[in-house]
């Protein structure tokens, strides 16, 4: 049970604003779980309720099988890495790392030894005498990590710890934090709004939206099969289309957008003729084909004829905006195969039926 976090019906409102509404979630022992979502989705509030900084309005927090809902932060077996690190400016680096150990009233020699070890672990050996203000952002973050893990918590909470770092450093720290977690084997609960960060680091991701957990799953599962329009949108499924199911037969559903564009989707058993649905197609699953070739070589893929509207050059790939009837879709072409195209050029877009993701959405009728 050590390191298991069970959240049961957690709810928290600030005035009229509901930050977290009835979240139940089981975080497994030793896993790296990421709470992913845009700002204001409630992920930080949820983390703060686990840490003990916010009392929930309703629900329970169980850590390692014990109900800690009523316990203050200083009596919970968790430690936090704060967004802006929250290092004590009046203490040295070693003094910061030693703080929690001093609170446990350990002996001086023992504290010194464990501080030393923790600083070595985050590759800050020899910097113990510095002040936090004398360190770079990346180094400060390592201090914050060392200060939290030196106490060997059952669960480590990380609140957007990399938001303040530049991109290159962030990418390095992702690997480092992930390695640290694997070495320590303790449960990490990580909060971020960066989907790439979440995909790289997590064992499982919980995507949050408007105070609710929309979907929980392994990164691959989430990436391959986002269940809701929000999750799809957040995980870069850029082409979201509203459509009506025209017919369903032999594993394929025929769909039509309100503007009259038709296409086929692989039936996952969820399509009903006549129903309105939201579907998504990843830009990288769409490609350009030569119009004549496609007539000769019918591979059963969807074919859309459209006009090139815009080019978004991204270095390793190019995103093309293509107008198809009343829809505008994005086609991603990797730099390896991209060729020069002109705006206004007629193009044919092709994508397989199994690239169409059916999205469950209560609001399928809306917008």
């Amino acid at each position, binding site marked *: 049970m050590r390191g298991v976090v069970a959240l049961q019906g957690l709810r928290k409102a600030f005035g009229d604003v509901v930050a977290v509404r009835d979240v139940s979630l089981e975080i497994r022992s030793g896993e790296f779980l990421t709470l992913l979502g845009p700002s204001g989705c409630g992920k930080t509030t949820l983390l703060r309720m686990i840490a*003990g900084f916010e009392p929930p309005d309703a629900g329970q927090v169980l850590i390692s099988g014990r109900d800690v809902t009523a316990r203050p*932060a*200083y009596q919970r077996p968790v430690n936090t890495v704060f967004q802006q690190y929250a290092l004590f400016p009046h203490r040295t680096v070693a003094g910061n790392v030693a703080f929690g150990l001093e609170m446990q009233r350990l002996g001086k020699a023992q504290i010194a030894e464990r501080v030393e070890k923790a600083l070595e672990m985050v590759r800050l050996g020899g910097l113990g005498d510095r002040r936090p203000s004398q360190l770079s952002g990346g180094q400060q973050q390592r201090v914050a990590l060392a200060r939290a893990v030196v106490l060997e918590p059952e669960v480590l909470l990380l609140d957007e710890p990399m938001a303040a770092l530049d991109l290159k450093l962030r990418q390095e720290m992702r690997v480092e934090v992930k390695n640290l977690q694997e070495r320590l084997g303790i449960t990490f609960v990580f909060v971020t709004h960066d989907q790439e960060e979440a995909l790289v680091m997590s064992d499982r991701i919980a995507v949050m939206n408007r105070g609710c957990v929309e979907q929980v799953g392994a990164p691959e599962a989430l990436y391959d099969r986002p269940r809701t329009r929000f999750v799809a949108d957040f995980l870069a499924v850029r082409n979201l289309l509203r459509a009506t199911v025209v017919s369903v037969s032999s594993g394929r559903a025929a769909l039509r957008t309100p503007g009259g564009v038709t296409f086929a989707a692989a039936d996952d058993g969820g399509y009903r003729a006549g129903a309105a649905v939201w579907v998504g197609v990843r830009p990288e699953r769409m490609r350009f084909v030569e119009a004549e070739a496609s007539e000769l070589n019918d591979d059963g893929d969807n074919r859309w004829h459209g006009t090139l509207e815009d080019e978004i050059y991204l270095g390793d790939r190019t995103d093309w905006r293509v107008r198809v009837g009343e829809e505008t879709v994005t086609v991603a072409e990797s730099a390896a195969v991209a060729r020069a195209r002109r705006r206004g050029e007629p193009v044919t877009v092709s994508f397989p039926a199994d690239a169409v993701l059916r999205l469950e959405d209560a609001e399928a009728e809306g917008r």
Partner: protein
Amino acid sequence: MTSRRAAVLLALPGLVALAALFVAPQALMFESSLGRRSFYGGVVHQWSLDNYRRALEPLYLTILARSVALALATTLLCLLLAYPVAYWIGRRAPMRARNALLVLVILPFWTSFLVRMYAWIFVLRTEGLVNTALGLAGLGPLNLLYNDAAVLLGQVYGELPFMILPLYASLERLDRSLLEAAADLGAGPGRALWRVTLPLSRPGIVAGSVLVFIPSLGAYLAPDLLGGARTVYMGSLIQSQFAFVRDAPFGAALSFLLSLVVLLLLLVFRRPLGEARRA
């Protein structure tokens, strides 16, 4: 015009005022402290260190020690009383109430200190508010006025706002996440206060202490009015040299002795003071 020259020009009025209103009088005072009293209370400009020698006699050193003790006690009591108030206004009171509360802290300044000292006399004297109330309860009367406790009370009362304001400033901007970090690392409220809040509000503690200690050292209104001038403190001693004894040179020497004590203390505390200025 270069920005350097502009800066000098901008500083000029202040520098002139400082020279005319502070440096020049100090120089005149110093000159007269070296002279001696004439028969009719004027200054004879014959320079010697006699006044300083006299000021260091045990009688006057005792008075100086008493003044230092009063200033220290005032500072300490102000600190103990002001800290919870400043903490509450800066960290607990609702945001929109804070300005109003700060106005309440400085509200006494709207009335002259002299008048407020007289008000205390009305509260403390034998037929005063407190003793009348005690009398109704069949107690008292107590001797509340004209003793050292009354002097200390008057001093603490008068200087308290000067302690609250800098403490408020340093407590109010203390980063909440640092206190959360302390709790997260296992520090209960008491230990978080002792290990994080107090050290981080040190600039405010130092600034407030200096602001209270220095004027308390030369206090003479409270000793005079609430102490009944029974116990002599430096402030009243100096005042009497100028006003009654008419020995301006000796009064000037005593003033410089007092300034020297302040200067020495500031030197001792210059490191924490530097922190207070930077913060």
